[in-house]
Protein backbone atom coordinates (compact mmCIF):
# COMPACT_ATOMS: atom_id res chain seq x y z
CA UNK A 1 0.00 0.00 0.00
CA UNK A 2 1.55 3.27 -1.07
CA UNK A 3 1.75 5.84 1.69
CA UNK A 4 0.51 9.39 1.28
CA UNK A 5 2.48 12.36 2.59
CA UNK A 6 0.32 13.44 5.51
CA UNK A 7 1.99 12.21 8.72
CA UNK A 8 -0.34 10.39 11.06
CA UNK A 9 2.12 10.59 13.89
CA UNK A 10 5.51 12.14 14.30
CA UNK A 11 8.21 12.81 16.83
CA UNK A 12 10.76 15.57 16.62
CA UNK A 13 13.74 15.74 18.95
CA UNK A 14 11.95 13.82 21.68
CA UNK A 15 13.99 13.19 24.81
CA UNK A 16 13.02 11.40 28.00
CA UNK A 17 14.99 10.57 31.10
CA UNK A 18 14.19 8.40 34.08
CA UNK A 19 16.23 10.05 36.80
CA UNK A 20 19.77 10.37 35.53
CA UNK A 21 19.26 7.79 32.80
CA UNK A 22 18.44 9.14 29.35
CA UNK A 23 16.10 6.55 27.81
CA UNK A 24 15.13 8.41 24.65
CA UNK A 25 17.55 10.77 23.03
CA UNK A 26 16.34 13.08 20.30
CA UNK A 27 13.91 10.74 18.56
CA UNK A 28 12.79 12.13 15.21
CA UNK A 29 10.59 10.28 12.75
CA UNK A 30 7.26 10.59 10.96
CA UNK A 31 4.78 7.92 10.00
CA UNK A 32 2.78 8.61 6.86
CA UNK A 33 -0.83 7.62 6.35
CA UNK A 34 -1.20 4.04 5.19
CA UNK A 35 2.35 3.16 6.09
CA UNK A 36 3.52 0.25 8.22
CA UNK A 37 6.37 1.73 10.21
CA UNK A 38 8.55 -0.57 12.26
CA UNK A 39 10.53 0.32 15.32
CA UNK A 40 13.31 -2.24 15.48
CA UNK A 41 15.52 -2.65 18.47
CA UNK A 42 16.61 -4.96 21.24
CA UNK A 43 14.92 -5.13 24.63
CA UNK A 44 15.57 -1.95 26.56
CA UNK A 45 16.19 0.13 23.44
CA UNK A 46 13.22 2.38 24.18
CA UNK A 47 10.50 0.86 21.97
CA UNK A 48 7.85 0.45 24.66
CA UNK A 49 8.76 3.81 26.17
CA UNK A 50 8.12 5.40 22.78
CA UNK A 51 4.69 3.76 22.67
CA UNK A 52 3.97 5.02 26.17
CA UNK A 53 4.69 8.54 24.95
CA UNK A 54 2.38 8.07 21.97
CA UNK A 55 -0.38 6.80 24.24
CA UNK A 56 0.21 9.53 26.85
CA UNK A 57 1.16 7.09 29.57
CA UNK A 58 4.37 9.14 29.79
CA UNK A 59 5.22 12.73 28.92
CA UNK A 60 8.38 13.69 27.04
CA UNK A 61 10.92 15.95 28.73
CA UNK A 62 11.57 17.84 25.50
CA UNK A 63 10.61 17.61 21.85
CA UNK A 64 7.40 17.60 19.90
CA UNK A 65 5.00 14.74 19.28
CA UNK A 66 2.08 15.05 16.88
CA UNK A 67 -0.90 12.79 16.39
CA UNK A 68 -3.13 13.23 13.34
CA UNK A 69 -1.31 16.49 12.69
CA UNK A 70 -1.90 18.00 16.12
CA UNK A 71 0.40 18.29 19.14
CA UNK A 72 -0.23 15.27 21.33
CA UNK A 73 -1.10 17.52 24.27
CA UNK A 74 -4.11 18.71 22.27
CA UNK A 75 -5.20 15.25 21.13
CA UNK A 76 -8.79 14.63 22.11
CA UNK A 77 -10.68 11.52 23.14
CA UNK A 78 -12.06 11.45 19.61
CA UNK A 79 -8.50 11.28 18.27
CA UNK A 80 -7.75 8.29 20.52
CA UNK A 81 -10.94 6.63 19.28
CA UNK A 82 -9.21 6.53 15.88
CA UNK A 83 -6.38 4.46 17.32
CA UNK A 84 -6.16 0.79 18.24
CA UNK A 85 -3.43 -0.16 20.67
CA UNK A 86 -1.95 -3.51 21.55
CA UNK A 87 0.58 -2.96 24.30
CA UNK A 88 3.12 -5.39 25.67
CA UNK A 89 0.76 -6.05 28.59
CA UNK A 90 -2.61 -5.94 26.84
CA UNK A 91 -4.95 -8.37 28.55
CA UNK A 92 -8.55 -9.46 28.26
CA UNK A 93 -10.94 -10.44 31.04
CA UNK A 94 -10.17 -14.03 31.94
CA UNK A 95 -13.60 -14.98 33.22
CA UNK A 96 -15.30 -13.73 30.06
CA UNK A 97 -15.27 -15.51 26.72
CA UNK A 98 -13.35 -14.18 23.74
CA UNK A 99 -16.63 -13.06 22.20
CA UNK A 100 -17.80 -11.33 25.40
CA UNK A 101 -14.51 -9.45 25.57
CA UNK A 102 -14.83 -8.34 21.96
CA UNK A 103 -18.42 -7.25 22.58
CA UNK A 104 -17.21 -5.16 25.51
CA UNK A 105 -14.59 -3.42 23.40
CA UNK A 106 -17.03 -2.94 20.52
CA UNK A 107 -19.48 -1.22 22.90
CA UNK A 108 -16.74 0.82 24.56
CA UNK A 109 -15.63 1.99 21.11
CA UNK A 110 -19.20 2.75 20.04
CA UNK A 111 -19.27 0.08 17.37
CA UNK A 112 -21.92 -2.55 16.76
CA UNK A 113 -21.31 -6.21 17.38
CA UNK A 114 -22.12 -7.30 13.84
CA UNK A 115 -18.50 -7.23 12.71
CA UNK A 116 -17.29 -9.52 15.47
CA UNK A 117 -17.95 -12.89 13.77
CA UNK A 118 -16.00 -11.75 10.69
CA UNK A 119 -13.12 -10.56 12.86
CA UNK A 120 -13.04 -13.88 14.69
CA UNK A 121 -13.00 -15.73 11.41
CA UNK A 122 -10.09 -13.65 10.15
CA UNK A 123 -7.82 -14.99 12.86
CA UNK A 124 -9.26 -18.46 13.05
CA UNK A 125 -10.96 -17.98 16.41
CA UNK A 126 -14.58 -18.41 15.32
CA UNK A 127 -14.77 -21.91 16.81
CA UNK A 128 -13.25 -20.70 20.07
CA UNK A 129 -15.44 -17.65 20.47
CA UNK A 130 -17.20 -19.15 23.50
CA UNK A 131 -13.93 -20.15 25.16
CA UNK A 132 -13.14 -18.36 28.40
CA UNK A 133 -9.98 -16.33 28.02
CA UNK A 134 -8.46 -18.09 31.04
CA UNK A 135 -8.65 -21.35 29.06
CA UNK A 136 -6.98 -19.90 25.95
CA UNK A 137 -3.41 -20.52 24.85
CA UNK A 138 -1.03 -17.58 24.71
CA UNK A 139 -1.39 -17.40 20.95
CA UNK A 140 -5.18 -17.31 21.17
CA UNK A 141 -5.04 -14.62 23.83
CA UNK A 142 -2.69 -12.51 21.74
CA UNK A 143 -4.86 -12.83 18.64
CA UNK A 144 -7.97 -12.02 20.67
CA UNK A 145 -6.25 -8.99 22.23
CA UNK A 146 -5.26 -7.87 18.74
CA UNK A 147 -8.89 -8.17 17.65
CA UNK A 148 -9.95 -6.08 20.65
CA UNK A 149 -7.57 -3.39 19.42
CA UNK A 150 -9.01 -3.61 15.90
CA UNK A 151 -12.69 -4.02 16.72
CA UNK A 152 -13.46 -0.38 15.86
CA UNK A 153 -11.58 -0.38 12.53
CA UNK A 154 -9.01 2.20 13.68
CA UNK A 155 -7.10 4.42 11.25
CA UNK A 156 -3.90 3.97 13.22
CA UNK A 157 -2.82 0.78 14.94
CA UNK A 158 -0.01 0.80 17.49
CA UNK A 159 1.38 -2.64 18.18
CA UNK A 160 4.02 -3.33 20.78
CA UNK A 161 5.79 -6.59 19.91
CA UNK A 162 2.59 -8.30 18.76
CA UNK A 163 4.25 -11.66 18.12
CA UNK A 164 6.45 -11.80 21.19
CA UNK A 165 6.30 -15.25 22.72
CA UNK A 166 4.04 -16.72 20.04
CA UNK A 167 4.62 -20.03 18.29
CA UNK A 168 5.38 -19.96 14.54
CA UNK A 169 1.77 -20.69 13.52
CA UNK A 170 0.37 -17.90 15.69
CA UNK A 171 3.08 -15.53 14.45
CA UNK A 172 2.15 -16.33 10.87
CA UNK A 173 -1.48 -15.57 11.74
CA UNK A 174 -0.55 -12.17 13.18
CA UNK A 175 1.63 -11.43 10.15
CA UNK A 176 -1.31 -12.27 7.90
CA UNK A 177 -3.45 -9.80 9.84
CA UNK A 178 -0.76 -7.14 9.49
CA UNK A 179 -0.69 -7.73 5.75
CA UNK A 180 -4.48 -7.31 5.65
CA UNK A 181 -4.24 -4.06 7.60
CA UNK A 182 -1.65 -2.76 5.13
CA UNK A 183 -3.85 -3.71 2.19
CA UNK A 184 -6.78 -1.91 3.83
CA UNK A 185 -4.69 1.26 4.13
CA UNK A 186 -4.48 1.24 7.94
CA UNK A 187 -1.46 3.02 9.33
CA UNK A 188 0.54 0.69 11.53
CA UNK A 189 3.23 1.59 14.07
CA UNK A 190 4.91 -1.64 15.07
CA UNK A 191 7.70 -2.35 17.50
CA UNK A 192 9.60 -5.56 17.19
CA UNK A 193 12.96 -7.16 17.79
CA UNK A 194 12.28 -9.74 15.11
CA UNK A 195 14.28 -8.99 11.94
CA UNK A 196 12.16 -11.23 9.72
CA UNK A 197 8.99 -9.58 10.96
CA UNK A 198 10.45 -6.12 10.41
CA UNK A 199 11.62 -6.99 6.92
CA UNK A 200 8.43 -8.76 5.89
CA UNK A 201 5.79 -6.53 7.43
CA UNK A 202 7.13 -2.96 7.38
CA UNK A 203 7.27 -0.37 4.61
CA UNK A 204 9.85 1.58 6.57
CA UNK A 205 11.93 0.95 9.66
CA UNK A 206 13.70 2.91 12.32
CA UNK A 207 16.54 1.08 14.00
CA UNK A 208 16.57 2.08 17.64
CA UNK A 209 19.57 1.61 19.84
CA UNK A 210 19.93 2.85 23.39
CA UNK A 211 17.24 5.47 22.93
CA UNK A 212 18.58 6.82 19.65
CA UNK A 213 17.53 6.19 16.08
CA UNK A 214 20.55 4.74 14.31
CA UNK A 215 18.97 4.59 10.84
CA UNK A 216 15.65 4.98 9.07
CA UNK A 217 14.47 3.68 5.72
CA UNK A 218 12.77 0.91 3.82
CA UNK A 219 14.19 -2.51 4.70
CA UNK A 220 15.66 -2.89 1.21
CA UNK A 221 17.15 0.61 1.33
CA UNK A 222 18.79 -0.08 4.66
CA UNK A 223 20.39 -3.26 3.41
CA UNK A 224 21.45 -1.61 0.15
CA UNK A 225 22.94 1.34 1.99
CA UNK A 226 25.09 -1.05 3.92
CA UNK A 227 25.83 -3.32 1.00
CA UNK A 228 29.40 -4.45 0.84
CA UNK A 229 31.58 -3.75 -2.16
CA UNK A 230 32.01 -7.47 -2.73
CA UNK A 231 30.89 -10.23 -5.07
CA UNK A 232 31.76 -13.85 -4.40
CA UNK A 233 32.34 -16.08 -7.42
CA UNK A 234 32.28 -19.82 -6.87
CA UNK A 235 34.73 -21.39 -9.34
CA UNK A 236 35.49 -24.90 -10.54
CA UNK A 237 39.15 -25.03 -9.56
CA UNK A 238 39.96 -21.79 -7.73
CA UNK A 239 37.45 -21.98 -4.90
CA UNK A 240 35.51 -18.87 -3.87
CA UNK A 241 36.94 -15.80 -5.53
CA UNK A 242 36.07 -12.43 -3.99
CA UNK A 243 35.73 -9.53 -6.39
CA UNK A 244 34.84 -5.92 -5.81
CA UNK A 245 31.96 -4.26 -7.65
CA UNK A 246 34.10 -1.74 -9.52
CA UNK A 247 35.60 -1.65 -13.00
CA UNK A 248 38.88 -3.09 -11.75
CA UNK A 249 37.19 -6.40 -11.12
CA UNK A 250 35.44 -6.52 -14.49
CA UNK A 251 38.44 -7.96 -16.27
CA UNK A 252 38.95 -10.61 -13.60
CA UNK A 253 35.30 -11.61 -13.87
CA UNK A 254 35.49 -11.74 -17.65
CA UNK A 255 38.57 -13.93 -17.43
CA UNK A 256 36.80 -16.36 -15.09
CA UNK A 257 33.85 -16.56 -17.46
CA UNK A 258 36.13 -17.05 -20.45
CA UNK A 259 37.94 -19.86 -18.66
CA UNK A 260 34.66 -21.61 -17.89
CA UNK A 261 35.46 -21.40 -14.21
CA UNK A 262 32.27 -19.74 -12.98
CA UNK A 263 29.85 -21.94 -11.10
CA UNK A 264 27.83 -19.16 -9.47
CA UNK A 265 28.05 -15.51 -8.51
CA UNK A 266 26.70 -14.17 -5.24
CA UNK A 267 26.26 -10.57 -4.30
CA UNK A 268 27.23 -10.48 -0.65
CA UNK A 269 24.51 -8.12 0.68
CA UNK A 270 23.99 -7.90 4.42
CA UNK A 271 20.66 -8.83 5.92
CA UNK A 272 18.90 -6.57 8.41
CA UNK A 273 20.55 -8.28 11.32
CA UNK A 274 23.99 -7.56 9.93
CA UNK A 275 22.94 -3.97 9.25
CA UNK A 276 21.78 -3.71 12.84
CA UNK A 277 25.07 -5.07 14.17
CA UNK A 278 27.00 -2.75 11.92
CA UNK A 279 24.99 0.27 13.11
CA UNK A 280 24.84 -0.51 16.78
CA UNK A 281 27.81 -2.71 17.42
CA UNK A 282 25.68 -5.33 19.12
CA UNK A 283 23.37 -8.18 18.32
CA UNK A 284 19.62 -8.21 18.81
Amino acid at each position, binding site marked *: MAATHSPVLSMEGVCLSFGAKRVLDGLTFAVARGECFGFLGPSGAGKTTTIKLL*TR*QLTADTGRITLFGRPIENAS*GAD*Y*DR*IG*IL*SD*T*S*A*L*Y*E*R*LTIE*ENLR*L*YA*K*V*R*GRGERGIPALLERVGLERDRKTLVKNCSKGMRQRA*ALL*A*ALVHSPELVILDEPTSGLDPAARAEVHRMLAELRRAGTTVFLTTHDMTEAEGCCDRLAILNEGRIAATGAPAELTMEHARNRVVVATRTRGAVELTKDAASADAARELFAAGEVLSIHSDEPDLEEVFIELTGREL
Partner: protein
Amino acid sequence: MDATMRRVGALATKDLADLFKNPTMLVVLLMPIGFMLLFRLVIGDTAADAGLSGAGLAAAEGEFQKFLLGSGLCMSVGMVASMVLIYGIAEEKEKHTLRTLMLANVGAGEVAASKGGVTLAAVVAVGAACFAVAGGDPALLPVYLALTALGAVPVVLVSLVLGLASRDQMTAGFYSVPVLLLALVPTFGTANDAVDAIAEFTPLGGVYDLLGLAADGRLLTSDSLAPMAVTIAWAVAGAAVFAALYRRLARDN
Protein backbone atom coordinates in the same frame (compact mmCIF):
# COMPACT_ATOMS: atom_id res chain seq x y z
CA MET B 1 -21.55 12.75 27.38
CA ASP B 2 -23.21 10.10 25.21
CA ALA B 3 -19.86 8.40 24.73
CA THR B 4 -19.25 8.42 28.48
CA MET B 5 -22.68 6.93 29.19
CA ARG B 6 -22.10 4.32 26.51
CA ARG B 7 -18.73 3.35 27.98
CA VAL B 8 -20.04 3.28 31.56
CA GLY B 9 -22.98 1.12 30.42
CA ALA B 10 -20.66 -1.32 28.65
CA LEU B 11 -18.34 -1.49 31.65
CA ALA B 12 -21.24 -1.98 34.06
CA THR B 13 -22.54 -4.91 32.00
CA LYS B 14 -19.06 -6.43 32.13
CA ASP B 15 -18.62 -5.73 35.87
CA LEU B 16 -22.00 -7.28 36.66
CA ALA B 17 -21.24 -10.41 34.62
CA ASP B 18 -17.80 -10.69 36.17
CA LEU B 19 -19.25 -10.33 39.68
CA PHE B 20 -21.22 -13.55 39.26
CA LYS B 21 -18.42 -15.39 37.45
CA ASN B 22 -15.82 -14.67 40.11
CA PRO B 23 -16.03 -17.30 42.86
CA THR B 24 -14.33 -15.01 45.40
CA MET B 25 -16.84 -12.26 44.77
CA LEU B 26 -19.73 -14.70 44.96
CA VAL B 27 -18.52 -15.80 48.41
CA VAL B 28 -18.27 -12.13 49.41
CA LEU B 29 -21.87 -11.56 48.28
CA LEU B 30 -23.09 -14.62 50.19
CA MET B 31 -21.09 -13.96 53.36
CA PRO B 32 -23.39 -11.32 54.92
CA ILE B 33 -26.42 -13.48 54.15
CA GLY B 34 -24.70 -16.49 55.71
CA PHE B 35 -23.79 -14.53 58.83
CA MET B 36 -27.38 -13.30 59.12
CA LEU B 37 -28.61 -16.87 58.96
CA LEU B 38 -26.11 -17.87 61.61
CA PHE B 39 -27.05 -14.94 63.88
CA ARG B 40 -30.72 -15.70 63.54
CA LEU B 41 -30.32 -19.38 64.28
CA VAL B 42 -27.71 -19.17 67.06
CA ILE B 43 -28.48 -15.89 68.85
CA GLY B 44 -32.20 -16.25 68.20
CA ASP B 45 -32.24 -19.55 70.06
CA THR B 46 -30.23 -18.05 72.91
CA ALA B 47 -32.86 -15.30 73.36
CA ALA B 48 -35.67 -17.80 73.31
CA ASP B 49 -33.86 -20.01 75.82
CA ALA B 50 -33.36 -17.11 78.24
CA GLY B 51 -36.79 -17.80 79.79
CA LEU B 52 -38.30 -14.41 78.95
CA SER B 53 -42.04 -14.11 78.43
CA GLY B 54 -44.72 -11.54 77.75
CA ALA B 55 -43.59 -7.90 77.36
CA GLY B 56 -40.03 -8.80 78.26
CA LEU B 57 -39.82 -11.33 75.47
CA ALA B 58 -41.43 -8.91 72.99
CA ALA B 59 -38.96 -6.18 73.94
CA ALA B 60 -36.01 -8.58 73.67
CA GLU B 61 -37.22 -9.79 70.32
CA GLY B 62 -37.60 -6.20 69.12
CA GLU B 63 -34.05 -5.35 70.20
CA PHE B 64 -32.77 -8.54 68.61
CA GLN B 65 -34.59 -7.69 65.37
CA LYS B 66 -32.97 -4.23 65.35
CA PHE B 67 -29.57 -5.80 65.99
CA LEU B 68 -30.11 -8.27 63.16
CA LEU B 69 -31.18 -5.59 60.71
CA GLY B 70 -28.38 -3.26 61.76
CA SER B 71 -25.85 -6.06 61.45
CA GLY B 72 -27.23 -6.95 58.03
CA LEU B 73 -26.82 -3.36 56.92
CA CYS B 74 -23.25 -3.07 58.24
CA MET B 75 -22.17 -6.41 56.82
CA SER B 76 -23.75 -5.77 53.41
CA VAL B 77 -22.00 -2.43 53.11
CA GLY B 78 -18.75 -3.36 54.83
CA MET B 79 -18.11 -6.71 53.21
CA VAL B 80 -19.52 -6.12 49.75
CA ALA B 81 -18.34 -2.55 49.15
CA SER B 82 -14.84 -2.97 50.51
CA MET B 83 -14.07 -6.42 49.11
CA VAL B 84 -15.76 -6.13 45.72
CA LEU B 85 -14.30 -2.71 44.97
CA ILE B 86 -10.84 -2.86 46.45
CA TYR B 87 -10.11 -6.40 45.28
CA GLY B 88 -11.91 -5.86 41.97
CA ILE B 89 -9.87 -2.81 40.99
CA ALA B 90 -6.66 -4.33 42.35
CA GLU B 91 -7.22 -7.43 40.23
CA GLU B 92 -7.74 -5.26 37.16
CA LYS B 93 -4.46 -3.51 37.86
CA GLU B 94 -2.59 -6.71 38.57
CA LYS B 95 -3.83 -8.43 35.42
CA HIS B 96 -3.41 -5.31 33.24
CA THR B 97 -7.05 -5.25 32.14
CA LEU B 98 -7.39 -1.73 33.57
CA ARG B 99 -4.48 -0.53 31.45
CA THR B 100 -5.93 -2.24 28.38
CA LEU B 101 -9.24 -0.46 29.00
CA MET B 102 -7.52 2.89 29.44
CA LEU B 103 -5.63 2.35 26.19
CA ALA B 104 -9.06 1.85 24.60
CA ASN B 105 -9.88 5.44 25.54
CA VAL B 106 -11.77 4.56 28.73
CA GLY B 107 -11.28 7.08 31.54
CA ALA B 108 -10.60 6.20 35.17
CA GLY B 109 -13.75 8.12 36.08
CA GLU B 110 -15.79 5.86 33.82
CA VAL B 111 -14.26 2.76 35.43
CA ALA B 112 -15.02 4.22 38.87
CA ALA B 113 -18.62 5.09 37.90
CA SER B 114 -19.24 1.59 36.60
CA LYS B 115 -17.66 -0.25 39.49
CA GLY B 116 -19.18 2.11 42.07
CA GLY B 117 -22.65 1.77 40.54
CA VAL B 118 -22.52 -2.02 40.26
CA THR B 119 -21.16 -2.31 43.80
CA LEU B 120 -23.86 -0.04 45.18
CA ALA B 121 -26.49 -2.18 43.44
CA ALA B 122 -24.87 -5.34 44.84
CA VAL B 123 -24.82 -3.84 48.36
CA VAL B 124 -28.53 -3.02 48.13
CA ALA B 125 -29.37 -6.48 46.72
CA VAL B 126 -27.39 -8.25 49.45
CA GLY B 127 -28.97 -5.90 52.00
CA ALA B 128 -32.43 -6.93 50.76
CA ALA B 129 -31.49 -10.60 51.12
CA CYS B 130 -30.20 -9.94 54.65
CA PHE B 131 -33.45 -8.16 55.46
CA ALA B 132 -35.41 -11.18 54.27
CA VAL B 133 -33.27 -13.59 56.28
CA ALA B 134 -33.63 -11.38 59.36
CA GLY B 135 -37.40 -11.52 58.93
CA GLY B 136 -37.77 -7.74 58.94
CA ASP B 137 -41.14 -6.03 58.75
CA PRO B 138 -41.81 -5.48 55.01
CA ALA B 139 -43.03 -1.95 55.77
CA LEU B 140 -39.50 -1.15 56.92
CA LEU B 141 -37.83 -2.47 53.74
CA PRO B 142 -37.82 0.78 51.68
CA VAL B 143 -36.26 2.72 54.58
CA TYR B 144 -33.80 -0.12 55.22
CA LEU B 145 -32.68 -0.18 51.60
CA ALA B 146 -32.47 3.62 51.42
CA LEU B 147 -30.32 3.71 54.56
CA THR B 148 -28.16 0.87 53.22
CA ALA B 149 -27.56 2.80 49.99
CA LEU B 150 -26.93 6.05 51.86
CA GLY B 151 -24.50 4.39 54.25
CA ALA B 152 -22.72 2.69 51.36
CA VAL B 153 -21.89 5.99 49.62
CA PRO B 154 -18.82 6.98 51.71
CA VAL B 155 -17.61 3.38 51.94
CA VAL B 156 -17.91 2.97 48.17
CA LEU B 157 -16.05 6.23 47.52
CA VAL B 158 -13.23 5.41 49.95
CA SER B 159 -13.03 1.85 48.61
CA LEU B 160 -12.70 3.20 45.06
CA VAL B 161 -9.77 5.31 46.17
CA LEU B 162 -8.18 2.39 48.01
CA GLY B 163 -8.77 0.13 45.01
CA LEU B 164 -6.96 2.60 42.77
CA ALA B 165 -4.18 2.86 45.35
CA SER B 166 -3.73 -0.93 45.46
CA ARG B 167 -0.95 -2.21 43.24
CA ASP B 168 -2.13 -5.80 43.46
CA GLN B 169 -4.51 -8.09 45.30
CA MET B 170 -2.05 -8.51 48.16
CA THR B 171 -2.20 -4.77 48.83
CA ALA B 172 -5.97 -4.91 48.43
CA GLY B 173 -6.15 -7.30 51.37
CA PHE B 174 -4.16 -4.86 53.48
CA TYR B 175 -6.44 -1.95 52.55
CA SER B 176 -9.80 -3.70 52.78
CA VAL B 177 -9.52 -5.00 56.35
CA PRO B 178 -9.64 -1.56 58.07
CA VAL B 179 -12.63 -0.55 55.94
CA LEU B 180 -14.42 -3.76 56.84
CA LEU B 181 -13.67 -3.40 60.56
CA LEU B 182 -14.73 0.24 60.60
CA ALA B 183 -17.98 -0.67 58.88
CA LEU B 184 -18.72 -3.38 61.44
CA VAL B 185 -18.07 -1.27 64.58
CA PRO B 186 -21.79 -0.33 65.09
CA THR B 187 -22.75 -4.01 65.33
CA PHE B 188 -20.53 -4.35 68.40
CA GLY B 189 -22.01 -1.26 70.04
CA THR B 190 -24.69 -3.31 71.81
CA ALA B 191 -22.01 -5.29 73.61
CA ASN B 192 -20.01 -2.42 75.06
CA ASP B 193 -20.88 1.18 76.02
CA ALA B 194 -17.47 2.52 75.07
CA VAL B 195 -17.72 0.94 71.62
CA ASP B 196 -21.27 2.26 71.35
CA ALA B 197 -20.06 5.80 72.02
CA ILE B 198 -17.48 5.53 69.27
CA ALA B 199 -19.75 3.58 66.91
CA GLU B 200 -22.16 6.44 66.33
CA PHE B 201 -19.39 8.46 64.71
CA THR B 202 -18.20 5.73 62.36
CA PRO B 203 -19.22 5.75 58.67
CA LEU B 204 -22.18 3.45 59.29
CA GLY B 205 -22.93 4.59 62.83
CA GLY B 206 -25.39 7.21 61.59
CA VAL B 207 -27.43 4.89 59.38
CA TYR B 208 -27.31 2.17 62.07
CA ASP B 209 -28.90 4.56 64.56
CA LEU B 210 -31.37 5.85 61.96
CA LEU B 211 -32.44 2.28 61.27
CA GLY B 212 -33.06 1.74 64.99
CA LEU B 213 -35.16 4.91 65.09
CA ALA B 214 -37.10 3.78 62.01
CA ALA B 215 -37.80 0.42 63.61
CA ASP B 216 -39.14 2.26 66.67
CA GLY B 217 -41.24 4.55 64.46
CA ARG B 218 -39.13 7.59 65.46
CA LEU B 219 -37.29 8.27 62.19
CA LEU B 220 -39.04 11.58 61.60
CA THR B 221 -38.18 13.05 64.98
CA SER B 222 -35.44 15.34 66.19
CA ASP B 223 -33.55 12.24 67.38
CA SER B 224 -32.65 11.62 63.73
CA LEU B 225 -30.78 14.90 63.33
CA ALA B 226 -27.49 13.82 64.90
CA PRO B 227 -27.17 10.45 63.11
CA MET B 228 -28.28 12.08 59.85
CA ALA B 229 -25.58 14.74 60.29
CA VAL B 230 -22.98 12.02 60.91
CA THR B 231 -24.13 10.16 57.78
CA ILE B 232 -24.03 13.26 55.60
CA ALA B 233 -20.65 14.26 57.03
CA TRP B 234 -19.19 10.86 56.07
CA ALA B 235 -20.73 11.04 52.59
CA VAL B 236 -19.19 14.50 52.10
CA ALA B 237 -15.86 13.32 53.53
CA GLY B 238 -15.90 10.28 51.22
CA ALA B 239 -16.60 12.49 48.23
CA ALA B 240 -13.82 14.88 49.26
CA VAL B 241 -11.30 12.05 49.65
CA PHE B 242 -12.35 10.65 46.30
CA ALA B 243 -12.09 14.03 44.57
CA ALA B 244 -8.72 14.78 46.15
CA LEU B 245 -7.03 11.46 45.47
CA TYR B 246 -8.71 9.91 42.46
CA ARG B 247 -6.86 11.94 39.82
CA ARG B 248 -3.54 11.25 41.45
CA LEU B 249 -4.28 7.55 41.69
CA ALA B 250 -6.14 7.18 38.41
CA ARG B 251 -3.17 5.79 36.58
CA ASP B 252 -2.07 2.27 36.24
CA ASN B 253 0.99 0.91 38.07
